[in-house]
Each structure stands twice: as C-alpha cells, then as structure tokens.
C-alpha cells in the first residue's frame, strides 16, 4: 500500500517535471539580458530551495531525536540530509554551468558561492561522520548535534546575498525581495518546478528511509547471529 502511494507520487512528480520542461523550453520566451541560458534558473533556484528545506527538516528531526531518542527521527535526519546534499550538488552543478556561460568561468570566490560550497562540505562531513560511528545510539546523538550546528551555515548561505555585495545575483523572488522583480509568468513557472522537485525529493527520501530501516534490521540480525 505504502509502496503504491510512493510509486504514484513518483509517477506524478515525473509527469509534472516533463510538463514543466515542455513549458520552460518551448513556451516561455528567452530572457532579455541572458538569452536562452536563463532557463537553467528553473532548476537552479528550486534546487537550492529544496535542498535548504531538506536541511531544515533534518535539523528538526535531529532536535526531535535528542528529545525523544526515537530511532525513526534519526533515520529521517539521515535521509533528509542525503537528499539535501544531492540537491546541493544539483545547485552547485547548475550554478557552475550557468556561471561558465554568463561569467565565462566555472567558479569565482564570491561570498554566496563560497558559503554554498562550505555548506556542502559541512553536510558532507556530517555524512562522513555517520559512517565512522558503529554504535547507532552514539551515532544518532553526535550526528544530531552536528546537524544542529551545521544548519547555521545554511542560514548564512541563504542570507549571504543580503549581507554582502556579491557577483551572484541578489534576491529576485518576490517573497524575498518584497517586490515583483521578475516576470510573473516566469516566477509562476519557478514555483511549479519547485513543487515538482520537492515532490521528487520526497520520493527519494522515502526510498532512502526504507533502505536505512532495512540496513538497521540487517545490522541487528548480524549482531544477533554473532552473539550465538
């Protein structure tokens, strides 16, 4: 049953993405200043927002774990962080392609870009740390604390365009900028794709969650056979 729902959501988000692609590529006009390449925005921006939301939820799950010591909270935290990291990589990749075309280089050490990279490194460190701790209780506790600390880097990354003058564009989304800076049709499309990507992220997360749960049971079983 659960699996069927998951399949349905996966299928729906897939179709949604295809539909969005069709609109993005064939219906929306080129942007005035940047030309065709601006379309990468429809993946870059929602990708980052999805990633940050995943980190935020992972932080909440970590707090929950510390309070309740519920192993499921820990599973959510890993699965969410992993999804967040995947989308961070997506954001980095799309950003770099975009930068290459607009700025002519893959990378500049601009505050936004630098903080985004740091954010990636911190969460990569988190995942690495998890792999090196064998005992699940200890792993959950330490990882939860690190996750809470790590979230500060997300906040800095998010706010960096407001705090520093960056080469990276400033806020364009209306809810951040407080005014309409983008064509409403384009912004609407952004939200559509955000929705599709988030649904997609949810599906990956649920899959990872199942895997994590299975792994835990396997570990326990192996431990048990050893102790015989």
């Amino acid at each position, binding site marked *: 049953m659960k699996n069927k729902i998951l399949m349905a959501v996966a299928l729906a988000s897939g179709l949604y993405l295809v539909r969005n692609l069709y609109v993005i590529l064939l219906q929306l006009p080129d942007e005035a200043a940047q030309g065709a390449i601006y379309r990468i925005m429809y993946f870059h921006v929602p990708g980052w927002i999805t990633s940050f939301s995943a980190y935020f939820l992972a932080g909440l799950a970590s707090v929950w774990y*510390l309070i309740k010591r519920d192993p499921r909270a820990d599973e959510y935290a890993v699965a969410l962080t992993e999804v967040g990291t995947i989308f961070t990589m997506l954001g980095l990749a799309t950003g770099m392609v975009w930068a290459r075309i607009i700025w002519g280089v893959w990378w500049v050490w601009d505050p936004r870009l630098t903080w985004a990279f*740091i954010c990636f*490194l*911190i969460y990569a*460190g988190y995942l*690495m*740390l998890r792999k*090196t*701790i*064998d005992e699940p*209780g*200890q792993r959950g*506790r*330490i990882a*939860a*604390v*690190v996750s*809470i*600390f*790590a979230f*500060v*880097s997300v906040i*800095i990354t998010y706010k960096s365009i407001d*705090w*520093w003058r960056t080469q990276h564009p400033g806020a364009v989304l209306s809810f951040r900028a407080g005014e309409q800076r983008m064509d409403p049709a384009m912004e609407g499309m952004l939200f559509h794709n955000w929705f599709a990507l988030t649904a997609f992220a949810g599906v990956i997360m649920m899959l990872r969650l199942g895997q994590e749960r299975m792994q835990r049971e396997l570990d326990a079983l192996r431990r048990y056979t050893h102790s015989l």
Partner: protein
Amino acid sequence: MGHVFTIAWKDLRSELRTKESINAAAAFSMVILVLFSFVLDISGDARDFGGGLLWLVFAFAGALVLNRSFAREQSNDCLDALVASPLPGWALFLGKAIANFALLGIVELVALPVFGILFNANWLRFPAWTLLTCALATWGMTVIGTMFSALTVNLRLRELMLPVLVYPMLIPVLMAAMQLTTALLVGEGITAEDWIWVKLLIGFDIIFTSLSLALIDFILVS
C-alpha cells in the same frame, strides 16, 4: 560557578606545568608561517595577506591546543569520572572553554610579535579594535573547538573526523577575523563596510556558545 573555575584551573595547571601543547602550537605556528611565506613569496607585497595568514596560522596551531583539551580527559577515562560526579555538563564545558581561551591567548601573544617582525606589521595602529577582534574570534574558535573535541572524543577515527568537521564550521569566524585584521593592519580601521564582519563574529559567538551549553549534556552521557 565554583565548578567552572575548578575545571578551568585544573586544565590550566596541567597544561602550564608541562607547556606541552603551548610549545607545540607555538612551534607549529612558526613552521606554517615559513611554509606560507614560501608559497606567497614574501618578497612582494605580502603585507596585504597579513590578516589572512595570521588567522590561518592560529587556526592550524590552535587546533593542537584544542585537541588536547578533551584528549587529556581520555587517557585514563577521566571523563567518566567527571561525568559520574555531581559536576554539571555545562560547567565542565565552560571551564574547559575558559582554559582553552586562555591558552590560545598565550599562543597568540607569542605569535603576534614574531609575525609583526616578519611581516613588518604594526599591531598598535588600532589597539582596542585589534584586541576586540582577537578576543571575539578566539572565543569563537574556542567554543567550536572545545565542542567538537567533546563530540569526537570517544570516536575511533577522532583524528580524521575532527579537522573535517571543525575547519568548515570555523570558516565564518576565520573569514571575519581575517577581514577585520587586514583592515586594521593596512586599511583605515573598521569602516562601515566592515561592520558586517563584527556583527558576524558577535552573532557567531553568541549562537554557538548557547548551542554548546544547551547540547553538551547530550554528548557526555553515552
């Protein structure tokens, strides 16, 4: 508060008696300084890097001091003895952090003049600001370092995980400190533009100190 000073005093006393990690940190900071000067080819106008270099050196050398902090508790399972005692977790953390702050301060006091001579830097252009920057940044380093030292103290791969976790978390403090120090060394002091870095340092210190005090108890009990 009595507990806090008991712990701080214990740590300071054991360290100052042998001066092992202070000496190592001071020596190491010289070594890195030499390494960096090769890279940067000091001949030219290396003065601009002054602030950046200084804090890189402090970060690497300071790690030696900060690592020892909980490693010292580990050798004879002393941490267990402390955790089983009526000492509250936050007092343990605060005591250790204060001791580490003092030790890092000593290392900086040794390194600054050397650095000043090698790089022709004048620390006394804005003494109050310089002191403030150092204090804020050092406290930030101390809090993160002490907390992660506690986090990793019982891990099998402590030596590997500590740098991977600590340095990225430290980057905000280091960047702010570098920026401010450079401004104080070669610029016109703290201008309106630099205020963001001062605020970042203060915010960082407050946030991470409170987070650490709130979370330390979850770490100490296994």
